């Protein structure tokens, strides 16, 4: 069948009409519209969903409690999502679409450093503030961007706490082996850990990377095993953390401590590995044991927040949830302070923000990253995630050294 040009044009026009967004729910009404491209499919699906839960919990809380007061008028909030398929370029395209077609007021970050980096460029070009809670690579914040703010501690801190903790134990750990995925975030995590170890008298005996798409890491583990390290660290994401942990057991690699940047904090780690997940350490942005007292306007404490997540999503609150909610809170307090929805004024209020929440302090340095909140170290003890470091926020003692495989 051949279409006449006019008919084809007609069909195209019809499609365009159907595809055009409905009247945008913008602040012209009484709703503040946020937009977020987020990994609802692709390799970071799980983390993407946790991010979305964090956003939704905040949205529902705010709307149930009347909304956000901006200069005498109260606004409800709404969030428009698109699935970026965990792809950096797609995330940026969708951010552009959120701004140009959906006319969102502000951007909430995608999941991951790669996507946050590409979306930050769009935010910068369009001069729309973005607060993100899931891109910890400092690469994002070293570009001189003015419109991107990150509520998390930077990537290089992820594994520092585990090294500090193992060095304070008896006998103190002296050697460390590091494996890392090749993405920007994981590489920064690995570099940060290696730098900390070197500066604090620990020896890095192995440091190597593998591609994000690796389906087998057994040869890396064989090489690592030969160096006989006290501490084994992995900088990566949940999927490779599982692969590495299984591989360590398969080759019977024995160390005093095993630590991951991402993995143990997500319930999937323990549910996938069973007993083999026990005694593993994870660096975390937050845990439900942290002891902060938050400002009015949202759940004040970590346990209250954790209960709300459990009620809404029926699982234990994960730090990905908390940091995503914290990104929303940064907007909430900044918008109230600015007394305006003007992107420029809200940006300035974000730059000056200094507020304590259930998640910790939210305050940005001149680059837009939050250097003011410490990381915590969690350990899976008998299947349950326990915060063990730093001592002032811990709800348990670290189990160290780890028992051999088969006795966990």
């Amino acid at each position: 069948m051949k279409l006449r040009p006019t008919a084809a044009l007609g069909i195209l026009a019809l499609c365009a009409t159907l595809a055009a967004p409905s009247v945008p729910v913008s602040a012209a009404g009484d709703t503040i519209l946020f937009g977020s491209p987020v990994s609802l499919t692709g390799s970071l699906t799980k983390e993407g969903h946790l991010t979305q839960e964090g956003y939704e919990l905040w949205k529902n809380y705010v709307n149930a409690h009347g909304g956000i007061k901006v200069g005498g008028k109260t606004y409800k909030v709404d969030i428009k999502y698109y699935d970026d398929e965990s792809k950096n370029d797609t995330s940026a395209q969708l951010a552009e679409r959120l701004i140009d077609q959906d006319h969102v007021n502000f951007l909430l970050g995608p999941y991951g450093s790669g996507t946050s980096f590409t979306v930050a460029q769009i935010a910068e070009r369009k001069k729309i503030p973005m607060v993100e809670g899931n891109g910890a690579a400092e690469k994002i914040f070293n570009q001189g961007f003015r419109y991107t703010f990150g509520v998390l501690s930077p990537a290089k801190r992820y594994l520092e706490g585990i090294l500090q903790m193992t060095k304070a134990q008896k006998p103190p750990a002296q050697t460390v082996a590091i494996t890392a995925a090749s993405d920007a975030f994981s590489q920064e995590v690995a570099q940060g850990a290696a730098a900390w170890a070197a500066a604090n008298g620990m020896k890095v005996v192995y440091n190597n990377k593998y591609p994000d798409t690796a389906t087998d890491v057994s040869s890396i583990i064989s090489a690592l095993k030969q160096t006989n390290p006290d501490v084994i660290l992995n900088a990566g994401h949940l999927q490779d953390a599982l692969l590495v942990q299984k591989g360590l057991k398969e080759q019977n690699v024995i160390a005093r401590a095993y630590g991951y940047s991402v993995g143990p904090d997500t319930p999937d780690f323990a549910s996938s590995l069973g007993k083999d997940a026990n005694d593993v350490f994870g660096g975390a942005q937050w845990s439900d044991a942290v002891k902060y007292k938050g400002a009015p306007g949202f759940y004040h404490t970590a346990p209250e927040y954790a209960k709300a997540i459990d009620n809404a999503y029926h699982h234990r609150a994960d730090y990905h949830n908390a940091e995503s909610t914290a990104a929303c809170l940064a907007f909430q307090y900044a918008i109230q302070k600015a007394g305006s929805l003007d992107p420029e004024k809200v940006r300035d209020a974000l730059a000056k923000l200094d507020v304590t929440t259930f998640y910790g302090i939210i305050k940005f340095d001149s680059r837009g990253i939050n250097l003011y909140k410490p990381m915590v170290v969690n350990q899976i003890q008998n299947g349950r995630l326990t915060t063990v470091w730093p001592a002032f926020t811990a709800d348990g003692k670290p189990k160290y050294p780890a028992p051999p495989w088969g006795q966990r």
Partner: protein
Amino acid sequence: MHLVLQDLANGILAGGILAVVALGFSLVWGIMNIINLAHGAFVMLGAYLTYQLFASFHVDPFLSLPISFVVLFTAGYLLQRYLINWVVRAPILTTFLLTFGLSLLFVNIALIVWTGDQRGVTTAYAGANFTLAGVTIPWVKLYTLLAALVITGVMHLWLTRSKTGRAIRATSMDIGAAQLSGVRVAHIYSIVYGLGAGLAGVAGTLISMSYAINPNMGEPFLIKAFVVCVLGGLGSVQGALVGGLVYGIVEAFATQIDLYIGTQHISGSGLQDAIALAVLLIVLIVRPTGIMGKATA
């Protein structure tokens, strides 16, 4: 020396799995000229099926091998018979798009059914290992390799000795002549696609024991299957096996490249994909039909 032997073992163990992944992909491509982009999704479905049987009914993953095969074979047969056969003679781009669409469909169905959570099949004997001459070998991976060898052996015998196997090879050589000899091409095509899906399902079962299970897990395996079957030679059982083993061993040894030039870290494991593709390139220059492939007219 230990490390060399250990890497060789690691490479062979990983290669065995890749061979099974590539086998089904290679048959479908070689016999029907369909580059089956849904192959990775079938691997994923096989892994989920294994997971579900393990989690709900405590079925040992090795016992679910035949179940994965039968379920995925049936699904593949029906898909080819009632969907793909409509466009099988169309230019390759059409089947390319159709199988890509199917892949998206399956991945998203899995996302709805099992969500994006990472799942694992961790048996009581997971991680058990033995050491032989300083080389540590995990039992699960050894059994997986043996299963892979048995499966490729059975496939080879079936294709060369059975009546249906001969009909399949005849169809791939000359459709017209095969039809004149009474071969029902639509049926044969469906069997081949079913076999491809069934073998992917089996591969998924084997992979489920060492790799995290999630809706997108098939993607890296699809890409590797592509390389392995071109490396080994299209449409041949031995080709998939040899290609898989070569790929696995190359990847394992690539890890040993680990040096610094100034501050620049040259990491062979970081570059393992690039190294594997470079080997593919060299093989294609020396033997354009792949290691085991035969030149066709």
